[in-house]
Structure formats: structure tokens, C-alpha cells
């Protein structure tokens, strides 16, 4: 009987005991640890944590962590060939619910052709910072096209969405200012806040009353950061209530529409347009790596804002400009978004189908309101095993657990695409429900 099975009315444990101090393994149960346990340690050598982390990794990788960074051997289309690094096998034609290719644009023939033309004209890269020699005519065209699409005076292009947040927040805010972000804000927002040296606060997710409490009493410059769609829960920001608080407290607002630009709203401008508040939001940010299927990020707003950021967004001018072939692909992809609004209609039809299908089967998909569908497991000990079963069943979908989400808020993060066929969705849903039933997640 283990000590933990002892009843309280058994004979008491000896209060003291003498034993020899022997060398002990770093982990009795490696799976009870996670990356957060290796974040920092006191000591004198920055390399102190390497050995325990590598020891931990060697043990946990085959037990489930191998499911991260699985190499894909085909385009991130609706069906994808994935290398199972545990068995060495290439699993072909898995139904892909992992990629953020929400409109299926990354492999459209028109986009690929535009990229090839740009490769022939410009070669591989831009070979310079955008502030010096890296700004191509293509890059300027993309910035104009994005500004026009978003209905703003101007836009600035960044090499990644991450660098857009870092460059914007770090470029705009200063020590002594206040930045208040939703608690589920992306790491790029957090890093931008740190680099800005402004005071940083976080309000409880989507709680306008909590935002008000965090802003109250602060007299200096204030910036509030929210996201259009939150990338782990798939829910929307309650923008009208949030904006009301910002106006009452004299705060500027930035909306990061990484997972919502090109998808939401009558014209696909994003969640701000969806709520009819496009012109009320001060700064619009988005990425090109999801709905447009490419790479990069942007900030859109007034010309004066963009002029200011040109001088202070370090992540932009201290990086090489976005490569011309990528830019050419984005220009074409954006043209398709404008020319084919039916892509969004198809996406939302697919989203409705899948959400209803899963809910009807008793699957917990949380408060999802978007193409990002969390399939809640809520058990950190079992999610990897279920993930392995899904992979072998024929579904490519990523397990997400602590520290990416809270402890025992583990889930599979499903991304629906306009490119998914009805067959993909039905077959995929059947596979998922079958595995969840087998594991007692649904009955």
C-alpha cells in the first residue's frame, strides 16, 4: 500500500527517519514536468538547465511530445503527408485540421504563378532593410493594397506577424506609459510590451469591467490590446464593450486580427468591420501567414501613425524586408480575397457544419465562434495518447497543453478552411468523434 493510500486511522508515520543521501534521478515521472519547469533556475551558469531539460526531453519525446514539429512532406492543403517521427513512417493523405490556411490560398495556381514570375524578376530575397535598400516596388504595392483593403490611409509591412506586434507596441509606447492587454494576448503582444518598457497589465479574458479596473486611475498614455479572434479558444473580442471602456478612459486601442482579417465582416476586413466599428479602432494589425497563406504582418491606420512607426519600429527596420516572391504571392492572394467573396461564404458554411456536427456528437468545443475550433479534452495526462490515435486514424491536428494553455485546459486546436470539401469534413468529424468515444471523452 503506498503512503498515499494510507487511511488516517492507521498507525502514524514515523515523524523522523534516518537514511543515506544517494544520487537521485532528476525525474520520478518525467511526464509530470513540462517546459515551464525549465524556464529558469538560480545558479551561476546560463547552461545549468540544459542537462535536465535534455534528460527530460529524451524521456518525454517518445511518450507524446514527438507530436510537435512533425515534418509535413506536402503543401499544407486539406490533405497532407505527415512524417510520424515516432515510427519513421510518412502518413499520407491525412485530413489536415492543423494548418492555418483558412482560405486555401497558399497553393492556388494563380498565387504560385505570381511567385514564380517574381522569382524570375527579383530572385530569392530583398537583400536589405526596408529603410535602406530592401524596399521593392512590390513591397510598396502590397502596403497600398493592404491599406485600400482595410479602408485605412496607410499600412506598414513587417517580415512576420510577430515582428509587427513587437515593432508596433515597442515603437509606440514608452517607459511610464501603460499597456493593458487581454490575458490571452499572443506572445508577440507580451514581448512588445516588455520591450516598450511601459507598465504592463492584463485583464481577465474579454471582461470589459476588468479592463476598466486596470485602466482606472492612470493618467498617462494608455494603449489597450485585444485580438479579433483568440487563437486557442476561437472566440471573439466583445469589441463594442471594450471600445466603450477605452473611450471612457482615454485609451487608444489596437486590435490584432491575425486570425480574423480577410475572414470576418461583409468585406472581409475583420472583426472590427464585423461589429461595424472599423473606424473606431485606432490601430489595425494582421498577418499574412494565415488567411493569405504566405508570410509577414502589417499595421494599418492613419498616415501619421505609419510615418511615426517608420522611425521607431525596430523589428521592421532592423530586419530584412519581406522577400519579393513572398510579396508577389501576397499581392495575388489579396486580389483573390477581393475577387472571390464566395471563399468566405464557403469557409463559414464549413465552420457551421463542423461546429454543429461536433456539438451534436457531444464534443465540448468551448465558446468557439470562428474557424478556430478547440476540441476540449481537459486532461493533460491523456491528450498525447489521444493525439497519437488521431494521427493513426488519419487526422492531422495539434494537441495543445500547458504551458500554451492552462493546466488541464488541454485541447486539440482545429482549423477549418474554405478549401475543405464536404467529404473532408464528414470523414474528419467521424474519425475525431470515433477516437473521442473510444477514450470516453464523449459517450
Amino acid at each position, binding site marked *: 500500500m503506498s503512503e498515499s493510500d494510507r487511511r488516517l486511522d492507521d498507525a502514524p508515520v514515523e*515523524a523522523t527517519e534516518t537514511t543515506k543521501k544517494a544520487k537521485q534521478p*532528476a*525525474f520520478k515521472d518525467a511526464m509530470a514536468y513540462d517546459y515551464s519547469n525549465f524556464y529558469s533556475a*538560480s545558479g551561476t551558469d546560463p547552461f545549468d538547465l540544459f542537462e*535536465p531539460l535534455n534528460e527530460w526531453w529524451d524521456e518525454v519525446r517518445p511518450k507524446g511530445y514527438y507530436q510537435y514539429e512533425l515534418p509535413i512532406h506536402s503543401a499544407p492543403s486539406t490533405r497532407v503527408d505527415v512524417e510520424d517521427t515516432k515510427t519513421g513512417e510518412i502518413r499520407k493523405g491525412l485530413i489536415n485540421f492543423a494548418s492555418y490556411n483558412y482560405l486555401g490560398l497558399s497553393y492556388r495556381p494563380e498565387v504560385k504563378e505570381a511567385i514564380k514570375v517574381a522569382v524570375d524578376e527579383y530572385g530569392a530575397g530583398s537583400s536589405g532593410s526596408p529603410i535602406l535598400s530592401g524596399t521593392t516596388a512590390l513591397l510598396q504595392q502590397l502596403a497600398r493594397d493592404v491599406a485600400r483593403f482595410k479602408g485605412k490611409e496607410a499600412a506598414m509591412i513587417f517580415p512576420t506577424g510577430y515582428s509587427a506586434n513587437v515593432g508596433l507596441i515597442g515603437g509606440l509606447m514608452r517607459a511610464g506609459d501603460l499597456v493593458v492587454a487581454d490575458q490571452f494576448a499572443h506572445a508577440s503582444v507580451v514581448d512588445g510590451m516588455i520591450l516598450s518598457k511601459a507598465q*504592463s497589465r492584463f485583464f481577465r479574458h474579454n471582461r470589459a469591467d476588468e479592463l476598466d479596473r486596470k485602466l482606472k486611475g492612470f493618467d498617462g498614455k494608455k494603449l489597450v490590446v485585444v485580438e479579433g479572434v483568440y487563437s486557442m479558444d476561437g472566440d471573439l473580442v466583445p469589441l463594442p464593450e471594450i471600445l466603450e471602456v477605452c473611450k471612457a478612459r482615454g485609451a487608444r486601442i489596437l486590435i490584432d486580427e491575425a486570425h480574423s482579417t480577410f475572414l470576418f465582416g461583409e468585406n472581409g476586413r475583420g472583426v472590427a468591420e464585423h461589429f461595424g466599428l472599423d473606424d473606431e479602432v485606432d490601430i489595425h494589425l494582421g498577418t499574412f501567414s494565415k488567411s493569405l497563406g504566405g508570410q509577414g504582418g502589417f499595421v494599418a491606420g492613419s498616415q501619421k501613425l505609419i510615418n511615426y512607426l517608420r522611425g521607431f519600429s525596430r523589428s521592421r527596420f532592423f530586419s530584412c524586408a519581406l522577400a519579393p516572391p513572398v510579396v508577389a504571392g501576397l499581392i495575388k492572394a489579396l486580389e483573390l480575397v477581393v475577387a472571390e467573396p464566395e471563399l468566405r461564404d464557403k469557409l463559414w458554411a464549413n465552420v457551421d457544419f463542423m461546429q454543429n456536427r461536433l456539438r451534436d456528437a457531444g464534443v465540448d468545443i468551448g465558446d468557439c465562434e470562428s474557424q478556430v475550433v478547440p476540441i476540449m479534452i481537459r486532461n493533460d495526462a491523456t491528450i498525447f495518447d489521444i493525439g497519437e490515435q488521431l494521427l493513426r486514424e488519419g487526422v492531422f491536428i495539434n494537441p495543445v497543453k500547458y504551458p500554451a494553455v492552462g493546466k488541464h*485546459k488541454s485541447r486539440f486546436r482545429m482549423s477549418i478552411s474554405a478549401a475543405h470539401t464536404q467529404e473532408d469534413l464528414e470523414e474528419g468529424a467521424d474519425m475525431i468523434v470515433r477516437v473521442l468515444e473510444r477514450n470516453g471523452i464523449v459517450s
Partner: protein
Amino acid sequence: MRLTKYEFKHCIGAMFEMSTADARKILPDHLHPLEVQHTRSVLAVLAFQFTGSEVGTYDEVVLSVVTPPRVVPGEPLPQAAFYPFMVATSTEAAREHAIERWSLPHYMKDLEFSFDESDGQMKVGVFDEGAPVLELTVSQHSFVPADFPYHCFMTRDDERLKVNIFMNAPHSQHEEETGELVLYDHPMTEALTLQEVSSYPFREEWYQAGIQTFEEVENI
């Protein structure tokens, strides 16, 4: 190596955001606070119902700042590390024992404790001659067997001390933010800027019916 064991019925704990500025003031110079968010550190509040020990049965509350652990080859990696800056117990014997054996800073009066369990929640009340000191509410997730190591840092005059602690019991933890902390103005909480301490935990933990084992104190 002498091991000291404490048998408990419940160990209820939760982690709350606190101001990093307060955490730095509390910690000795050689320790640094863990930051869960930029400028936000972690206050750990633990409450114990001890049912067996060298000094009999007693209740205890511990307020700690969470710090990075000390990685030592040949030793288990801890689940967490902390610096207790205020401990209070329900008996004088327990208080004297913890000061002498573990150099833990104490509030020098016996406090009253209440542990009310219902509907998967435990509400702990700590009182000083009837006046509330703090109220902690933690809810449970599923319990799984655990045998987890922790690092506890202390000081004694100029000495820097550490002790390894092991918790062996069924363990529940979650981050549903369903718990609550109410702190009152009291000498136990005077090191904290109370309005900077979050009223809800970002993590709730619960150990049931187990053993807490201390190794020997070591100088670091």
C-alpha cells in the same frame, strides 16, 4: 540524512499574481522572483491540516514568493521553489518547532483555522482572535497520485538556506480560476500591496491525505 515527516489530511494551495516590486522587497538579495507576466510575480498561499508530526496535530498557513529553483546534479528537479515570508500556526509547539528546525519566519501568535469542504471546494479561513486574516477558496479537479519535490529557501542571519521538501499524496491541480483569495490588513500581510494581489488564483492545487517530508537544511 535525517528526514522529518508530517502527515496531513489536506494541503490546500493556490497561486496568485502579485507585484514584482513587492516580491523583490520581500526576497533576500540572492533570490529573484519568478515573473508569470511582465512585472507580475507569484504569491503562493498554502494551508495545511497536519494530523501527525513531532509536535502533534496543528493547522498552518504559509505565504511565499515563488522563485526559480536551484538545479543540482544528482537531485530531483523540483516542481516549484519558494521563499516563505510569513508562516502562522495554530499551536505554539508547532511554531517553535518550525522556527528552530526550518528557520521559517512566523507570526508569533496562535491563529484559528477553519476548513470547510463542500461541493468539490475547500474554503479555508484564518483568524486572529476572531478577526479575519485571510480567506482562501480552492476547488478540485481530478486527483492523481503524486510524489513531487519542491525547494524551500530560508535565511538565518546572514546564512542562505535551502531544504528539499517532498509531497506524497493524491494531487489535484487546475487553472480554471474558480478559486478566491481575500486578504485583510494584518501583520501577516503587511509586506504585500493588497490591491496588487489578484483576488483569483491562476492555479489551484489540493493534496489529500498524505505525507510531507523534509530533508535536512543545507547552506547554499
